[in-house]
């Protein structure tokens, strides 16, 4: 199940995101650069206080399209817009989207 999630199938049949699969993606794979606890690594801290300048929409756009000129890659090839929005809200609220 976790593997399917990483391949962009973290949506249930009705199109709603699967929270456990997306949480795993955030901590394990975003965590490659941002740290498993999201406190930062080669990439910046992405806990709520550090993301205060983002709205849900602007953070969703960063997740989908990356930040050109930095190592932040676009995740659009791997996840849907709905999933990116779920992740943005998860990050902005510190785990209670």
């Amino acid at each position, binding site marked *: 199940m*976790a*593997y399917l999630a*990483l*391949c*962009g199938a973290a949506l249930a049949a009705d199109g709603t995101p699967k929270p456990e699969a997306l949480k795993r993606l955030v901590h*394990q*794979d975003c*965590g*490659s*650069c941002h*740290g*498993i*606890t999201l*406190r*930062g*690594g*080669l990439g910046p801290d992405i806990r709520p206080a550090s993301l205060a300048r983002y709205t849900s929409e602007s953070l969703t756009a960063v997740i989908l399209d*990356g930040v050109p000129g930095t*190592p932040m*890659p*676009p*995740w659009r*090839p*791997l996840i849907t817009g709905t999933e990116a929005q779920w992740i943005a809200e998860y990050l902005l609220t510190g785990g209670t989207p």
Partner: protein
Amino acid sequence: MKRAGILLALLATLGLPLPGNCAGATGDLGLVVERETGSLLVIDQSDHAAIGRIEGLGDLSHASLVYSPDERFAFVFGRDGGLTKVDILDQAIVGRVMQAGNSIGGAISDDGRLVAVSNYEPGGVRIFDTDTLEMVADIPTGSKTVGLVDAPGRRFVFSLWDSGETWIADLSKGSPAITRITGIGSNPYDALITGDGRTYIAGLFGDDGLTALDLWQDQPAPIHILPDYGREEQDLPVYKMPHLEGWAQAAGEFVLPAVGHHEVLWVDANDFHETGRTQTHGQPVFAMARPDGRQVWVNFAHPLNDTIQIIDTLTKKVIHEIRPGPAVLHMEFTPRGHEVWVSVRDAGKVVVYDTHTFEQLAEIAAISPSGIFFTARAHRTGL
């Protein structure tokens, strides 16, 4: 006493050997990092078995470790800045300091007296006495530091992500004498040192190619490797930075993971010119030569990280492919290379393969395993 008796009975019931190893031999033992639980699994190479677990090491995401020269102690570098000294025989933590806020790897000096830790926050390197874990030197760099390795002569070498420099810290005379080398390139992300301690190679994220330094020179000058590599094609998004490790040398060539491309690159170890490319299943994370150099085993970045490919060094062709399971994070060869141990994070296991037949020999349960480290690393420069 009664409580100890119950504990021992419980261990016996679980089929685990009792802690403490009276024979005192550690040569075929190793440690597996269990990143989410902050624990280490103690493994026995000959028995294909886990023989214990050491807990309480904090945040072990992206953790690595090095061994003391006597192969009894491991120094574990946690992401949360924790530096933990572990006794493998007693399977216990014997020292622990929180030395920074955010760390990435470390190294032990050739004489085994100093352990150095590379820090993101605050950026720099801190050096500790291996007996007491007291800090003996603090080297702030004003940058995230990466690619920290040991070099002969009580030296440590590391690179600066933000400013594109490599520093050599020489501790042979007590306080560190620093040699700064600028112009390494944009955003070095990791580095390796060859087993002879002569060549340091930094991988670059922000520039094409890699940069080598000849550490046998008094003032090493950057040697740019494959400076035009990748310009002709669009880079793919990079979901995981590759790793460089001193296992990358095979039969007189370096085999190096490409950044943002589905290939590994072959470079002549003497003059650094490109000798070939091998197309691979995905973006390589580790490209590791079997200790004899005859094969190179490659694992891949998310989302293609369920697969390992094996490349033949003579033909540079992929000769075999295996699928150990979801999220293959690390591979460790036995010292002479007859087996490779593979961590499969999302399947919760370490899988052992015969490197000659590719047959699976064993599976060992582990909790979200990442790095695997055999004690033989104690005697290898750069590991």
